[in-house]
Protein backbone atom coordinates (compact mmCIF):
# COMPACT_ATOMS: atom_id res chain seq x y z
CA UNK A 1 0.00 0.00 0.00
CA UNK A 2 2.80 2.33 0.82
CA UNK A 3 4.44 1.96 -2.54
CA UNK A 4 1.17 2.74 -4.32
CA UNK A 5 0.91 6.06 -2.56
CA UNK A 6 4.53 6.83 -3.27
CA UNK A 7 3.89 6.49 -6.98
CA UNK A 8 0.84 8.68 -7.04
CA UNK A 9 2.91 11.29 -5.26
CA UNK A 10 4.97 12.21 -8.21
CA UNK A 11 2.80 15.09 -9.24
CA UNK A 12 3.73 18.44 -7.64
CA UNK A 13 0.88 20.43 -6.29
CA UNK A 14 2.84 23.21 -4.60
CA UNK A 15 6.19 24.33 -5.89
CA UNK A 16 8.43 27.04 -4.45
CA UNK A 17 11.51 27.83 -6.53
CA UNK A 18 14.34 29.81 -5.12
CA UNK A 19 12.09 31.78 -2.84
CA UNK A 20 13.43 34.59 -0.63
CA UNK A 21 11.42 36.87 1.54
CA UNK A 22 12.14 40.08 3.41
CA UNK A 23 9.36 41.86 5.31
CA UNK A 24 10.61 45.23 4.14
CA UNK A 25 13.15 46.62 1.77
CA UNK A 26 15.57 47.60 4.52
CA UNK A 27 15.39 44.43 6.61
CA UNK A 28 17.30 41.19 6.18
CA UNK A 29 15.86 38.17 4.43
CA UNK A 30 13.67 36.02 6.66
CA UNK A 31 13.69 33.19 4.14
CA UNK A 32 16.39 32.55 1.62
CA UNK A 33 16.66 30.22 -1.37
CA UNK A 34 13.77 28.01 -0.47
CA UNK A 35 13.14 25.23 -2.96
CA UNK A 36 10.21 23.14 -1.93
CA UNK A 37 7.71 20.97 -3.73
CA UNK A 38 4.71 19.35 -2.15
CA UNK A 39 3.55 16.32 -4.01
CA UNK A 40 -0.04 15.27 -4.13
CA UNK A 41 -1.19 13.39 -1.03
CA UNK A 42 2.00 14.10 0.86
CA UNK A 43 1.96 14.92 4.57
CA UNK A 44 4.91 17.25 5.11
CA UNK A 45 5.86 18.30 8.61
CA UNK A 46 8.07 21.32 9.25
CA UNK A 47 10.29 21.58 12.29
CA UNK A 48 12.58 24.42 13.20
CA UNK A 49 13.59 26.83 15.90
CA UNK A 50 11.28 29.60 16.97
CA UNK A 51 11.48 32.53 14.58
CA UNK A 52 13.14 30.61 11.75
CA UNK A 53 10.39 31.47 9.30
CA UNK A 54 8.01 28.51 9.41
CA UNK A 55 4.90 30.68 9.61
CA UNK A 56 6.32 32.94 6.94
CA UNK A 57 6.79 29.98 4.63
CA UNK A 58 3.22 28.90 5.24
CA UNK A 59 1.91 32.40 4.59
CA UNK A 60 3.63 32.40 1.22
CA UNK A 61 2.01 29.12 0.22
CA UNK A 62 -1.34 30.34 1.54
CA UNK A 63 -1.00 33.41 -0.65
CA UNK A 64 -1.06 36.00 2.15
CA UNK A 65 2.33 37.37 1.26
CA UNK A 66 4.41 37.12 -1.88
CA UNK A 67 8.04 36.09 -2.28
CA UNK A 68 10.47 38.96 -2.61
CA UNK A 69 12.36 36.77 -5.01
CA UNK A 70 11.60 33.49 -6.70
CA UNK A 71 8.24 31.97 -7.55
CA UNK A 72 5.49 30.15 -5.72
CA UNK A 73 3.12 27.93 -7.69
CA UNK A 74 -0.07 26.08 -6.93
CA UNK A 75 -0.55 23.43 -9.60
CA UNK A 76 0.63 25.19 -12.71
CA UNK A 77 -0.35 28.71 -11.71
CA UNK A 78 1.56 31.27 -9.68
CA UNK A 79 -0.02 31.80 -6.27
CA UNK A 80 -1.85 35.11 -6.48
CA UNK A 81 -3.76 35.09 -3.23
CA UNK A 82 -5.62 32.85 -0.82
CA UNK A 83 -7.97 30.18 -2.10
CA UNK A 84 -10.16 27.64 -0.35
CA UNK A 85 -8.29 24.78 -2.02
CA UNK A 86 -5.40 25.79 0.21
CA UNK A 87 -7.07 25.69 3.62
CA UNK A 88 -5.21 27.29 6.52
CA UNK A 89 -5.23 26.62 10.24
CA UNK A 90 -3.63 29.68 11.80
CA UNK A 91 -1.19 29.76 14.66
CA UNK A 92 -3.62 32.11 16.43
CA UNK A 93 -7.09 31.06 15.31
CA UNK A 94 -9.07 34.04 13.95
CA UNK A 95 -12.54 32.79 14.87
CA UNK A 96 -15.36 35.22 14.17
CA UNK A 97 -16.68 36.53 17.48
CA UNK A 98 -20.08 37.28 15.98
CA UNK A 99 -20.64 33.62 15.13
CA UNK A 100 -21.04 30.79 17.57
CA UNK A 101 -19.02 27.59 17.36
CA UNK A 102 -21.32 25.81 14.91
CA UNK A 103 -21.64 28.89 12.72
CA UNK A 104 -17.89 29.36 12.67
CA UNK A 105 -17.48 25.81 11.49
CA UNK A 106 -20.24 26.26 8.92
CA UNK A 107 -18.58 29.37 7.50
CA UNK A 108 -16.69 27.69 4.65
CA UNK A 109 -19.66 25.54 3.62
CA UNK A 110 -21.90 28.58 3.57
CA UNK A 111 -19.45 30.46 1.40
CA UNK A 112 -19.46 27.51 -0.94
CA UNK A 113 -23.27 27.43 -1.06
CA UNK A 114 -23.83 24.12 0.68
CA UNK A 115 -27.45 23.76 1.66
CA UNK A 116 -28.25 24.11 5.31
CA UNK A 117 -29.24 20.47 5.54
CA UNK A 118 -26.06 19.18 3.94
CA UNK A 119 -24.05 21.31 6.33
CA UNK A 120 -25.86 20.34 9.51
CA UNK A 121 -24.78 16.72 9.45
CA UNK A 122 -21.23 17.59 8.51
CA UNK A 123 -21.02 20.09 11.33
CA UNK A 124 -22.27 17.65 13.92
CA UNK A 125 -19.80 15.14 12.57
CA UNK A 126 -16.86 17.52 12.88
CA UNK A 127 -17.98 18.87 16.25
CA UNK A 128 -17.84 15.34 17.47
CA UNK A 129 -14.47 14.75 15.85
CA UNK A 130 -12.96 17.67 17.78
CA UNK A 131 -14.86 16.85 20.94
CA UNK A 132 -16.94 20.00 21.16
CA UNK A 133 -20.47 18.71 20.60
CA UNK A 134 -21.55 20.24 23.87
CA UNK A 135 -20.24 23.66 22.90
CA UNK A 136 -22.11 23.99 19.64
CA UNK A 137 -23.83 27.23 20.61
CA UNK A 138 -21.04 28.83 22.59
CA UNK A 139 -19.39 32.00 21.44
CA UNK A 140 -15.63 31.87 20.74
CA UNK A 141 -14.88 34.15 23.68
CA UNK A 142 -16.41 31.59 26.01
CA UNK A 143 -13.93 28.92 25.01
CA UNK A 144 -10.57 27.91 26.43
CA UNK A 145 -7.41 28.28 24.35
CA UNK A 146 -7.36 24.65 23.26
CA UNK A 147 -11.06 24.65 22.43
CA UNK A 148 -10.62 27.63 20.13
CA UNK A 149 -7.84 25.85 18.35
CA UNK A 150 -10.06 22.82 17.83
CA UNK A 151 -12.87 24.94 16.40
CA UNK A 152 -10.39 26.45 13.97
CA UNK A 153 -9.24 22.97 12.96
CA UNK A 154 -12.78 21.76 12.37
CA UNK A 155 -13.60 24.89 10.42
CA UNK A 156 -10.81 24.23 7.96
CA UNK A 157 -11.11 20.44 7.77
CA UNK A 158 -14.83 20.49 7.04
CA UNK A 159 -14.00 22.24 3.78
CA UNK A 160 -11.86 19.31 2.67
CA UNK A 161 -9.37 21.43 0.72
CA UNK A 162 -6.84 19.95 -1.67
CA UNK A 163 -3.99 21.36 0.38
CA UNK A 164 -4.09 21.81 4.14
CA UNK A 165 -1.68 24.32 5.68
CA UNK A 166 -1.54 23.97 9.45
CA UNK A 167 0.53 26.21 11.71
CA UNK A 168 1.10 24.50 15.05
CA UNK A 169 -2.53 23.46 15.15
CA UNK A 170 -2.18 21.29 18.24
CA UNK A 171 0.09 23.66 20.11
CA UNK A 172 -2.37 24.42 22.89
CA UNK A 173 -3.70 20.90 23.41
CA UNK A 174 -3.03 18.54 26.24
CA UNK A 175 -1.43 15.18 25.59
CA UNK A 176 -4.65 13.26 25.30
CA UNK A 177 -6.62 15.66 23.17
CA UNK A 178 -3.56 16.05 21.05
CA UNK A 179 -3.33 12.35 20.40
CA UNK A 180 -6.98 12.23 19.50
CA UNK A 181 -6.58 15.11 17.11
CA UNK A 182 -3.51 13.53 15.55
CA UNK A 183 -5.40 10.32 15.02
CA UNK A 184 -8.31 12.19 13.52
CA UNK A 185 -6.09 14.16 11.16
CA UNK A 186 -4.25 11.03 10.11
CA UNK A 187 -7.51 9.28 9.40
CA UNK A 188 -8.89 12.14 7.36
CA UNK A 189 -5.67 12.33 5.40
CA UNK A 190 -5.66 8.62 4.67
CA UNK A 191 -9.29 8.69 3.61
CA UNK A 192 -9.43 11.93 1.68
CA UNK A 193 -5.91 12.15 0.33
CA UNK A 194 -5.33 15.84 0.99
CA UNK A 195 -1.87 17.27 0.76
CA UNK A 196 -0.81 18.59 4.13
CA UNK A 197 1.87 21.03 5.26
CA UNK A 198 2.05 20.82 9.00
CA UNK A 199 4.17 23.08 11.18
CA UNK A 200 4.92 21.78 14.62
CA UNK A 201 7.55 22.11 17.29
CA UNK A 202 7.10 18.57 18.50
CA UNK A 203 9.48 16.10 16.87
CA UNK A 204 7.39 13.11 17.95
CA UNK A 205 4.37 14.64 16.36
CA UNK A 206 6.21 15.35 13.12
CA UNK A 207 7.53 11.82 12.91
CA UNK A 208 4.27 10.14 13.79
CA UNK A 209 2.25 12.15 11.26
CA UNK A 210 4.44 13.07 8.31
CA UNK A 211 5.53 11.21 5.22
CA UNK A 212 8.26 13.79 4.96
CA UNK A 213 9.83 15.94 7.67
CA UNK A 214 11.61 19.17 6.87
CA UNK A 215 14.00 20.73 9.32
CA UNK A 216 14.60 24.43 9.05
CA UNK A 217 17.36 26.59 10.50
CA UNK A 218 17.36 30.28 11.03
CA UNK A 219 19.45 33.29 10.15
CA UNK A 220 18.23 33.37 7.33
CA UNK A 221 15.47 30.76 7.35
CA UNK A 222 16.26 27.82 5.13
CA UNK A 223 15.56 24.10 4.85
CA UNK A 224 18.58 22.19 6.08
CA UNK A 225 17.42 18.62 5.99
CA UNK A 226 14.63 16.40 4.74
CA UNK A 227 13.57 13.00 6.06
CA UNK A 228 11.22 10.54 4.41
CA UNK A 229 9.20 8.73 7.05
CA UNK A 230 6.39 6.23 7.19
CA UNK A 231 5.68 5.83 10.88
CA UNK A 232 2.28 7.36 10.31
CA UNK A 233 1.11 4.24 8.47
CA UNK A 234 2.13 2.02 11.36
CA UNK A 235 0.53 4.41 13.80
CA UNK A 236 -2.67 4.22 11.79
CA UNK A 237 -2.73 0.46 12.07
CA UNK A 238 -1.24 -0.32 15.44
CA UNK A 239 -1.28 1.50 18.69
CA UNK A 240 0.32 4.94 18.32
CA UNK A 241 2.24 4.60 21.52
CA UNK A 242 4.04 1.59 20.14
CA UNK A 243 5.81 3.45 17.36
CA UNK A 244 7.39 5.74 19.93
CA UNK A 245 9.36 2.84 21.21
CA UNK A 246 10.50 1.38 17.91
CA UNK A 247 14.16 1.80 17.21
CA UNK A 248 13.84 3.47 13.83
CA UNK A 249 11.70 6.09 15.39
CA UNK A 250 14.00 6.73 18.32
CA UNK A 251 16.96 6.89 16.04
CA UNK A 252 15.47 9.39 13.68
CA UNK A 253 14.15 11.41 16.60
CA UNK A 254 17.60 11.54 18.13
CA UNK A 255 19.13 12.59 14.85
CA UNK A 256 16.66 15.38 14.32
CA UNK A 257 17.02 16.69 17.86
CA UNK A 258 20.74 16.65 17.44
CA UNK A 259 20.44 18.46 14.15
CA UNK A 260 18.26 21.18 15.62
CA UNK A 261 20.62 21.58 18.57
CA UNK A 262 23.70 21.80 16.44
CA UNK A 263 22.21 24.04 13.79
CA UNK A 264 22.20 27.04 16.12
Amino acid at each position, binding site marked *: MISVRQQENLENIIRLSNVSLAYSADSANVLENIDLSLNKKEFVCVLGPSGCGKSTLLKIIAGFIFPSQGTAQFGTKAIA*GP*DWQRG*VVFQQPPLYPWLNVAENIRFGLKMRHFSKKQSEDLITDYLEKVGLLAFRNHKPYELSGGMKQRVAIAR*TLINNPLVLLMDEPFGALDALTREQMQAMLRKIWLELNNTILFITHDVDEALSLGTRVLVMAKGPGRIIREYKTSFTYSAAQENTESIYHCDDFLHMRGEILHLIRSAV
Partner: protein
Amino acid sequence: MADSQVKIKRNFPCKPKIWLTTEHLITLSTVAVIFISWYAATEWKLFSEVIIPPPGKVYKTFIDILSEGYKGAALSTHLFDSIERLLAAFVFVCLTAVPAGLLSGYNSKIRAVLEPLVGFYRPLPPLAYYTMLVIWMGIGNSSKIMLLYLAGFAPVYLACISGVMKIKRDYISGAYTLGANKYQVFVYVVLPACLPDLFTGLRTALGFSYTTLVAAEMVAAETGIGWMVLDASKFLLSDVIFVGIFIMGITGIMLDVLLKFMENKIIPWKGKE
Protein backbone atom coordinates in the same frame (compact mmCIF):
# COMPACT_ATOMS: atom_id res chain seq x y z
CA MET B 1 -32.34 20.94 59.28
CA ALA B 2 -33.52 23.71 57.03
CA ASP B 3 -32.37 26.56 59.19
CA SER B 4 -28.83 25.31 59.44
CA GLN B 5 -28.37 25.95 55.73
CA VAL B 6 -26.17 28.93 55.19
CA LYS B 7 -26.83 31.18 52.25
CA ILE B 8 -23.58 31.89 50.51
CA LYS B 9 -23.01 35.03 48.54
CA ARG B 10 -21.98 33.99 45.07
CA ASN B 11 -19.76 35.98 42.74
CA PHE B 12 -19.74 35.73 38.99
CA PRO B 13 -17.12 37.13 36.67
CA CYS B 14 -19.97 38.44 34.52
CA LYS B 15 -22.02 40.29 37.06
CA PRO B 16 -25.81 40.28 36.86
CA LYS B 17 -27.32 43.74 36.32
CA ILE B 18 -28.28 45.75 39.34
CA TRP B 19 -30.93 48.36 38.77
CA LEU B 20 -29.84 51.15 41.08
CA THR B 21 -26.09 51.38 41.34
CA THR B 22 -23.89 53.92 43.08
CA GLU B 23 -23.28 55.38 39.64
CA HIS B 24 -26.97 56.03 39.17
CA LEU B 25 -27.08 57.82 42.52
CA ILE B 26 -24.12 59.97 41.53
CA THR B 27 -25.82 60.89 38.27
CA LEU B 28 -29.01 61.79 40.08
CA SER B 29 -27.08 63.94 42.54
CA THR B 30 -25.32 65.74 39.71
CA VAL B 31 -28.63 66.57 38.09
CA ALA B 32 -30.04 67.63 41.45
CA VAL B 33 -27.10 69.95 42.09
CA ILE B 34 -27.64 71.62 38.74
CA PHE B 35 -31.32 72.13 39.35
CA ILE B 36 -30.72 73.51 42.80
CA SER B 37 -28.08 75.95 41.56
CA TRP B 38 -30.44 77.03 38.83
CA TYR B 39 -33.21 77.52 41.33
CA ALA B 40 -30.95 79.41 43.72
CA ALA B 41 -29.54 81.63 40.99
CA THR B 42 -32.98 82.74 39.92
CA GLU B 43 -34.35 82.94 43.45
CA TRP B 44 -31.60 85.35 44.47
CA LYS B 45 -32.09 87.15 41.17
CA LEU B 46 -28.49 86.83 40.07
CA PHE B 47 -29.71 87.16 36.49
CA SER B 48 -32.66 88.88 34.91
CA GLU B 49 -35.60 86.64 34.12
CA VAL B 50 -35.11 87.22 30.44
CA ILE B 51 -31.65 85.77 30.72
CA ILE B 52 -32.37 82.78 32.93
CA PRO B 53 -36.00 82.09 33.68
CA PRO B 54 -36.76 80.43 37.03
CA PRO B 55 -37.43 76.67 36.95
CA GLY B 56 -41.01 77.24 38.08
CA LYS B 57 -41.73 79.47 35.15
CA VAL B 58 -40.15 77.10 32.68
CA TYR B 59 -42.24 74.31 34.10
CA LYS B 60 -45.40 76.42 33.84
CA THR B 61 -44.56 77.33 30.26
CA PHE B 62 -43.98 73.68 29.51
CA ILE B 63 -47.42 72.80 30.85
CA ASP B 64 -48.98 75.67 28.90
CA ILE B 65 -47.32 74.61 25.66
CA LEU B 66 -48.26 71.05 26.37
CA SER B 67 -51.93 71.94 26.69
CA GLU B 68 -52.20 74.81 24.22
CA GLY B 69 -49.34 74.26 21.82
CA TYR B 70 -47.01 76.94 20.51
CA LYS B 71 -48.05 79.27 17.70
CA GLY B 72 -50.84 77.19 16.30
CA ALA B 73 -49.34 73.75 16.60
CA ALA B 74 -49.41 71.31 19.46
CA LEU B 75 -46.14 70.49 21.18
CA SER B 76 -46.47 66.96 19.91
CA THR B 77 -46.74 68.32 16.36
CA HIS B 78 -43.56 70.33 16.80
CA LEU B 79 -41.75 67.37 18.26
CA PHE B 80 -43.14 64.94 15.76
CA ASP B 81 -42.26 67.12 12.77
CA SER B 82 -38.69 67.50 13.95
CA ILE B 83 -38.29 63.83 14.71
CA GLU B 84 -39.80 62.98 11.35
CA ARG B 85 -37.22 65.13 9.57
CA LEU B 86 -34.46 63.66 11.69
CA LEU B 87 -35.49 60.09 11.13
CA ALA B 88 -36.04 60.54 7.41
CA ALA B 89 -32.51 61.91 7.16
CA PHE B 90 -31.22 59.14 9.39
CA VAL B 91 -32.81 56.42 7.31
CA PHE B 92 -31.22 57.86 4.18
CA VAL B 93 -27.90 58.01 5.99
CA CYS B 94 -28.17 54.34 6.92
CA LEU B 95 -29.11 53.40 3.39
CA THR B 96 -26.33 55.33 1.70
CA ALA B 97 -23.49 56.19 4.07
CA VAL B 98 -23.12 52.66 5.42
CA PRO B 99 -22.64 50.94 2.06
CA ALA B 100 -20.63 53.89 0.73
CA GLY B 101 -18.36 53.85 3.77
CA LEU B 102 -17.90 50.09 3.90
CA LEU B 103 -17.21 49.92 0.18
CA SER B 104 -14.81 52.83 0.41
CA GLY B 105 -12.95 51.07 3.18
CA TYR B 106 -12.90 47.85 1.21
CA ASN B 107 -12.07 49.13 -2.25
CA SER B 108 -9.46 51.82 -2.65
CA LYS B 109 -10.83 52.89 -6.06
CA ILE B 110 -14.25 53.65 -4.66
CA ARG B 111 -12.58 55.44 -1.80
CA ALA B 112 -10.59 57.51 -4.26
CA VAL B 113 -13.84 58.84 -5.69
CA LEU B 114 -15.81 59.42 -2.53
CA GLU B 115 -13.38 60.27 0.24
CA PRO B 116 -12.15 63.58 -1.16
CA LEU B 117 -15.73 64.72 -1.73
CA VAL B 118 -16.72 63.87 1.81
CA GLY B 119 -13.49 65.35 3.11
CA PHE B 120 -14.29 68.55 1.30
CA TYR B 121 -17.89 69.04 2.38
CA ARG B 122 -17.49 67.62 5.85
CA PRO B 123 -15.96 70.71 7.47
CA LEU B 124 -18.39 73.02 5.68
CA PRO B 125 -20.79 74.72 8.07
CA PRO B 126 -24.41 73.94 7.22
CA LEU B 127 -25.17 77.63 7.47
CA ALA B 128 -22.66 78.28 4.73
CA TYR B 129 -24.35 76.10 2.17
CA TYR B 130 -27.90 76.04 3.44
CA THR B 131 -28.73 79.01 1.24
CA MET B 132 -27.56 76.98 -1.74
CA LEU B 133 -29.65 74.02 -0.68
CA VAL B 134 -32.75 76.17 -0.37
CA ILE B 135 -32.08 77.70 -3.76
CA TRP B 136 -31.76 74.24 -5.31
CA MET B 137 -34.37 72.28 -3.38
CA GLY B 138 -36.85 74.90 -2.28
CA ILE B 139 -38.06 75.71 1.18
CA GLY B 140 -40.02 72.54 1.76
CA ASN B 141 -39.09 69.56 3.87
CA SER B 142 -36.66 68.25 1.29
CA SER B 143 -34.00 70.91 1.82
CA LYS B 144 -34.35 70.48 5.59
CA ILE B 145 -33.98 66.73 5.40
CA MET B 146 -31.07 67.15 2.99
CA LEU B 147 -29.27 69.36 5.47
CA LEU B 148 -29.75 66.84 8.27
CA TYR B 149 -28.74 64.07 5.90
CA LEU B 150 -25.51 65.80 4.95
CA ALA B 151 -24.75 66.38 8.62
CA GLY B 152 -25.24 62.69 9.35
CA PHE B 153 -23.55 61.27 6.27
CA ALA B 154 -19.94 62.19 7.01
CA PRO B 155 -19.62 60.67 10.51
CA VAL B 156 -21.13 57.36 9.43
CA TYR B 157 -19.09 57.27 6.25
CA LEU B 158 -15.83 57.95 8.04
CA ALA B 159 -16.61 55.55 10.89
CA CYS B 160 -17.26 52.80 8.38
CA ILE B 161 -13.99 53.43 6.57
CA SER B 162 -12.04 53.42 9.78
CA GLY B 163 -13.91 50.31 10.91
CA VAL B 164 -12.91 48.45 7.77
CA MET B 165 -9.32 49.59 8.13
CA LYS B 166 -9.15 48.23 11.66
CA ILE B 167 -10.37 44.72 10.80
CA LYS B 168 -7.81 42.09 11.69
CA ARG B 169 -6.14 40.97 8.48
CA ASP B 170 -6.52 37.36 9.56
CA TYR B 171 -10.31 37.67 9.63
CA ILE B 172 -10.23 38.50 5.97
CA SER B 173 -7.50 36.12 4.85
CA GLY B 174 -9.23 33.45 6.90
CA ALA B 175 -12.44 33.95 4.98
CA TYR B 176 -10.68 33.70 1.63
CA THR B 177 -9.01 30.45 2.61
CA LEU B 178 -12.43 29.13 3.57
CA GLY B 179 -13.77 29.83 0.11
CA ALA B 180 -15.36 33.25 0.36
CA ASN B 181 -15.25 35.50 -2.67
CA LYS B 182 -14.80 39.28 -2.47
CA TYR B 183 -18.51 39.85 -2.21
CA GLN B 184 -18.95 37.25 0.53
CA VAL B 185 -16.02 38.60 2.50
CA PHE B 186 -17.74 41.94 2.38
CA VAL B 187 -21.11 40.68 3.56
CA TYR B 188 -20.06 38.02 6.02
CA VAL B 189 -16.85 39.43 7.46
CA VAL B 190 -16.38 43.12 6.78
CA LEU B 191 -19.94 44.07 7.65
CA PRO B 192 -20.21 42.24 10.99
CA ALA B 193 -16.65 43.10 11.97
CA CYS B 194 -17.45 46.77 11.43
CA LEU B 195 -20.67 46.79 13.39
CA PRO B 196 -19.13 48.25 16.54
CA ASP B 197 -17.62 51.14 14.60
CA LEU B 198 -20.77 51.47 12.57
CA PHE B 199 -22.83 52.00 15.66
CA THR B 200 -20.39 54.52 17.02
CA GLY B 201 -20.75 56.32 13.70
CA LEU B 202 -24.52 56.14 13.79
CA ARG B 203 -24.62 57.55 17.29
CA THR B 204 -22.29 60.36 16.35
CA ALA B 205 -24.38 61.03 13.26
CA LEU B 206 -27.63 61.15 15.14
CA GLY B 207 -26.21 63.61 17.64
CA PHE B 208 -24.72 65.61 14.84
CA SER B 209 -27.95 65.73 12.83
CA TYR B 210 -29.79 66.81 15.93
CA THR B 211 -27.28 69.58 16.29
CA THR B 212 -28.18 70.82 12.85
CA LEU B 213 -31.89 70.79 13.58
CA VAL B 214 -32.24 74.48 14.37
CA ALA B 215 -30.30 75.46 11.29
CA ALA B 216 -32.51 73.19 9.21
CA GLU B 217 -35.68 74.68 10.63
CA MET B 218 -34.39 78.21 10.33
CA VAL B 219 -35.83 78.91 6.93
CA ALA B 220 -39.56 78.93 6.37
CA ALA B 221 -40.55 76.33 8.91
CA GLU B 222 -43.79 76.68 10.81
CA THR B 223 -43.36 73.73 13.08
CA GLY B 224 -40.53 71.84 14.68
CA ILE B 225 -38.79 72.08 18.00
CA GLY B 226 -35.85 73.85 16.41
CA TRP B 227 -38.13 76.40 14.85
CA MET B 228 -39.91 76.90 18.16
CA VAL B 229 -36.65 77.74 19.92
CA LEU B 230 -35.58 80.05 17.16
CA ASP B 231 -38.94 81.77 16.99
CA ALA B 232 -39.03 82.18 20.75
CA SER B 233 -35.58 83.68 20.71
CA LYS B 234 -36.81 86.37 18.33
CA PHE B 235 -39.34 87.44 20.87
CA LEU B 236 -36.97 86.88 23.76
CA LEU B 237 -39.26 84.26 25.29
CA SER B 238 -36.50 82.64 27.29
CA ASP B 239 -38.87 80.30 29.09
CA VAL B 240 -39.93 78.81 25.77
CA ILE B 241 -36.27 78.57 24.73
CA PHE B 242 -35.53 76.62 27.88
CA VAL B 243 -38.48 74.32 27.34
CA GLY B 244 -37.27 73.68 23.79
CA ILE B 245 -33.72 73.05 24.91
CA PHE B 246 -34.85 70.58 27.55
CA ILE B 247 -37.02 68.75 25.08
CA MET B 248 -34.16 68.54 22.59
CA GLY B 249 -31.66 67.44 25.21
CA ILE B 250 -33.92 64.77 26.63
CA THR B 251 -35.18 63.40 23.33
CA GLY B 252 -31.57 63.44 22.15
CA ILE B 253 -30.54 61.32 25.11
CA MET B 254 -33.46 59.01 24.52
CA LEU B 255 -32.61 58.41 20.88
CA ASP B 256 -29.03 57.77 21.89
CA VAL B 257 -30.06 55.29 24.58
CA LEU B 258 -32.20 53.55 22.00
CA LEU B 259 -29.24 53.18 19.67
CA LYS B 260 -27.02 52.01 22.53
CA PHE B 261 -29.62 49.44 23.44
CA MET B 262 -29.77 48.17 19.86
CA GLU B 263 -25.99 48.12 19.78
CA ASN B 264 -25.84 45.90 22.85
CA LYS B 265 -28.43 43.58 21.37
CA ILE B 266 -26.75 43.35 18.00
CA ILE B 267 -23.10 43.22 19.08
CA PRO B 268 -22.90 41.14 22.23
CA TRP B 269 -19.29 40.29 21.47
CA LYS B 270 -18.08 43.89 21.61
CA GLY B 271 -14.94 44.24 23.71
CA LYS B 272 -14.68 40.49 24.20
CA GLU B 273 -12.65 39.46 21.21
